[in-house]
């Protein structure tokens, strides 16, 4: 057994200590709330039309989807009953995202303006946002009362107190008001073979090639970004099928865009595709079953592959050798890589902790060595804790179901699911502040919760949000909300962060955060 079980204290406790000492308590919620005023509207307005959802959800209650059992139990976010959104993926370079709905159609939303051009007119944005906010039902989600938002220090405006962003319109919100900023065409992708979509992935370093993991194959859609058609023909889709490789549930593109990994929980081989020539190389091993979760490190050097058994593997992406990591309790649920690929955070089913596994710095030719450290250490203990809030005591904590680390490496979001026995504990998104160098730090900074009854399902960070981090949460009600975090990144603010790991290393020394936008 290779993990050392060095228990560090409960993070929540650490947090409380921190506050008592009057030290730097993270006040991100406030900043988050205050920052609402200048959320780029172009980013906000892509939203799901409400109409297709109502019948869909009803339909889902009644019928059992073919193959839903296996696939949905392994899907990352499908937190039980209402899984109205199957998959979500941001484009790695532009403000464009794809959403796979329950009926296996995929919609691609595209903001008409790039985030770069948004800097120009904050006034107009603000005015528009005010109008929008006033039209909304504003109580859709309240920030959870967390330790940091103590009554003494908050002077949050009432409007900002409420949900910062509503992606879907309220039940009686006039549809169409916010559509003015999105590009008019929302391509809907449908294909004969596109069944039980489990994952989406945009090809990096490419305008719009979208890989879709389906029941029997991987579909690769070649979309023309300039085209105005709303229903691309199925001729635009390339079918990658391999005998014995189904259902495909996870996909990962190499960050350099040459290769596509696809994996299935049933097939023991993981396939490396050269998409353009449709060649594939199966990577086989023995024991452990298939692959339930794939994550390629942002620097392209390593790949995490979790199996349905209590083992996960870390592949090294040059010579394709792997290191085997047995876990104590259950299978590896989810994992995410730091931007420079030197640290892996992962969680295990049945344990409410986050493990960290650090890897030797990727330098020179490793020649087939994964180079992981000997043991994994626990960096956060998320066991259940009660919080005294204005609304009474709330209990939060439990297993982590999915995690996302923002591309600058400064925010970590995790879906924490409460224990099923306790009725009052619930699923919630916890956001942490992280720092990767010189030493790894993880501090809690707040919670996000949706409307009553809504459970967070999928998490994703915008890959190139210039002013901090933009977290996108898909809720079980079919809503997608974008939550911006504004901070001055210690990282070199230009360019796309994933391509300058050197800059990331050199400059992440001082984390100084200021509220950039203080008034609405």
């Amino acid at each position, binding site marked *: 057994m290779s993990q050392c079980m060095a228990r560090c204290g409960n993070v929540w406790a650490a947090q409380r200590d921190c506050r008592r000492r009057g030290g730097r308590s993270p006040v991100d919620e406030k900043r988050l709330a205050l920052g609402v005023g200048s959320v780029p509207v172009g980013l906000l307005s892509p939203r799901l039309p409400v109409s297709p959802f109502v019948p869909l959800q009803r339909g889902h209650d009644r019928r059992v989807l073919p193959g839903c059992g296996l696939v949905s139990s392994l899907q990352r976010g499908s937190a039980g009953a209402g899984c109205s959104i199957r998959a979500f993926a941001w484009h790695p370079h532009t403000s464009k995202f794809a959403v796979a709905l329950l009926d296996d159609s995929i919609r691609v939303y595209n903001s008409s303006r790039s985030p770069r051009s948004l800097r120009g007119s904050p006034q107009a944005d603000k005015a528009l946002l005010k109008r929008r906010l006033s039209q909304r039902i504003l109580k859709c989600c309240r920030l959870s009362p967390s330790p940091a938002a103590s009554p003494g220090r908050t002077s949050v405006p009432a409007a900002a107190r409420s949900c910062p962003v509503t992606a879907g319109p309220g039940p009686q919100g006039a549809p169409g008001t916010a559509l003015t900023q999105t590009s008019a065409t929302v391509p809907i992708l449908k294909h004969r073979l596109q069944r039980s979509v489990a994952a989406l992935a945009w090809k990096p370093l490419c305008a*719009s090639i979208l890989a879709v993991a389906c029941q029997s194959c991987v579909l690769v859609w070649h979309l023309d970004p300039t085209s105005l058609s709303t229903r691309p023909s199925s001729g635009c889709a390339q079918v990658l099928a391999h*005998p014995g490789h189904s259902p495909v549930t996870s996909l990962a593109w190499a960050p350099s865009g040459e*290769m596509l990994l696809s994996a299935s929980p049933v097939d023991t081989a993981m396939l490396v595709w*050269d998409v353009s020539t*449709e*060649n594939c*190389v*199966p990577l086989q091993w023995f024991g452990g079953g298939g692959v339930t979760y794939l994550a390629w490190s942002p620097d392209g050097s390593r790949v995490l592959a979790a199996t349905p058994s209590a083992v996960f593997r870390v592949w090294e992406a040059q010579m394709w050798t792997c290191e085997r990591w047995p876990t104590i309790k259950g299978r590896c649920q989810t994992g995410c890589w730091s931007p420079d690929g030197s640290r892996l955070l992962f969680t295990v089913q049945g344990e409410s902790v986050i493990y960290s596994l650090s890897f030797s710095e990727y330098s020179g030719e490793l020649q087939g060595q994964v180079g992981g450290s000997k043991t994994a250490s626990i960096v956060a203990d998320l066991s259940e804790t009660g919080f005294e809030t204005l609304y009474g005591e709330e209990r939060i904590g439990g297993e982590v179901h999915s995690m996302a680390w923002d591309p600058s490496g400064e925010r970590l979001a995790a879906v924490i699911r409460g224990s099923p026995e306790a009725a009052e504990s619930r699923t919630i998104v916890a956001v942490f502040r992280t720092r990767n160098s010189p030493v790894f730090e993880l501090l809690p900074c707040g919670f996000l919760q949706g409307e009553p009854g809504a459970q967070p399902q999928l998490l994703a960070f915008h890959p190139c949000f210039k002013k901090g981090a933009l977290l996108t949460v898909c809720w079980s009600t079919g809503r997608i909300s974008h939550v911006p975090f504004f901070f001055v990144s210690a990282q070199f603010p230009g360019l796309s962060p994933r391509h300058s790991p050197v800059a990331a290393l050199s400059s992440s020394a001082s984390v100084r955060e200021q509220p950039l936008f203080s008034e609405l």
Partner: protein
Amino acid sequence: VLGWRVAASVAWSVLLLPLCTAAFISISSIDLLHPIQWISNSFNDWYTSYAIFCMLLLSVVILIISIFNVEFYAVVPSIPCSRLALLGKIIHPRQVIHSAVHAIMGMLVAWCAAVMTKGKFQFLAVPCTASESLDGAVQHMCLNEYHLFLLLSGAFMGYSYSLLYLVNNMNYLPFPIIQQYKYLRFRRSLPALVKHSCVESLYLVRNVCVAYYFFGYIPRAWISATTDLHADSKLHPLDTLTGLLDLSLLYHTWLCGIFLLITWHIAWLLFKIYATEAHHFPVQPTFTEETDQCLPKILNSNPPLIIKFLALQDLMLLSQYSPVRRQEVFSLSQPGGHPHNWTAISKECLNLFRDLTQKLIMQQEAAATNGRVKQPSAGEPPQAAVSEEMSFQAQRSNVSRAHMPSLVKSSLLPLKTLSTSDLGSSFGSPFSSPALNRQAGILDLNSPWHGSVQSPHVMRRGPKLWTSSSDLQMNGSHQESFPVISVARVGNEAIQPSFIYTWLQNKQEQVRSFLSKRVLIMYFFSKHPEASIQAIFSDTQMHIWALEGLSRLVAASFTEDRFGVVQTTLPAILNTLLTLQEVVDKHFKLPHASSKPPRTSGSLMDTSYKTLRFALRASLKTAIYRITTTFGEHLNAVQVSAEHKKRLQQFLEFKE
């Protein structure tokens, strides 16, 4: 480099031979009813002198097969453009030798298999079952037809293997898409190999039976006549239905086929794996005598094609994985401070791209002006002299230059325009038969007036053109006499490529136009559009690596290039890439270009060369995006033409 690899692969395939043989012996004497006896018997059989002798013989066979593998390998697949070309390839002397040797080897393997199988297959001559002399003093020897059948089937299988080797382009060495250890690669493809061999052997057995049914009496009669052995009158002759429906015979033939195919395929697979393994070329020589082996030198010289491929692959790998070696690329030379390494590498890559651009433009020209250029050539009087020929070629090159889109600026077309476009247009134009191609190529290489115009760069292109047209050279058994004669003549009278040459050319045109009216001839001659497109992109793997390597180097230079050596070449790189991108885009608008050939998944044969053009398009786009995302806004400061600037802006906005 290659020598050691070949030796290692041969050694391994010989070492694996006893394993295969042991497995073959055990399976061939399988006896399910008495498993223990069977196992002990087969253990004993392994040590018999027969088996050991056979093993030695088989090692020799493997050695010879490996020698043929080495002799015949190619990194650029040869794609026959028409059926006649394929036919021509089969009767090419090289291929005939290949087939003959393989047939003999097949017979040897079958003999070994027969001897090791024992039983009724062991010897060619057996005592007759019904010997007339009942006293037994004089035993008559009879022909063992089973043995003969096995031998013939071995020869047939060897020949079929050789044919399939040709048709499936098994001599093509596909480079793997990911680097893996050799053992893992071998283990990965072993199940596919075994399965493929079994199925293949089944088909071959069927074919053998059919062939023997119809023609079996010929070799039997011949053997009986020469060795004075007579067929056993009591047994059924094997070329009847009842004779052929002998299950044990079929089973053993099938096993023998599997054994043959597996051992040969293993030799082939090992050679492939060893030859395509990444090789580490030093960027900077540590000692002076190593200068010839370092990367920039190899890229700029004209090594065997496989070395060039390996060098480009290594360039791609170093640009991706090795910061230390990247640093060496960006470094300056010690006395003098010139970035020799970078200059050499980038120059070679850009040259590759320019060549490809030229080739594609010519091909598009040919497609666009289909039939227009044909008129002057048909109307040309047969007594055209050298000067006319010259002017004609010049005119053609003018035409093609005029048709060249404006994007090809004169900066991209240095002095060599004339000669390369000559080459290209005669290469791609529709009326040029392969034979003419060959003549043109030879003319360009040999004739003095051309040689004077040629830059050394074109000289280097020469061999490449030769190899690509040599696939086609057998096109037309009817015309075989023409190219041979003309080649000889042109070679002799290089000073005045004369009369006869032009006369022959015209005659040839006439013959062609006459023949093209016949349907059967058209069937053989009609070019398969897909194949001709594949032929253009057959060596594109090189370009793909160059694209990846160069773009990664440029992207890495953003942070790692301390002396700014890359900046100076950045405009040229962008120009070349964008031009190529434009041409490739245009190419994909041609008919047939964007349709995919049917994909055969899971087979042992690699058909990736059929889709290389898609890989080129994808990696070209990725390369440009890699540069644009790394440099971002800074690219606006790079000097490129307005057209390219617009294009770059589109890439920056991810609108491409």
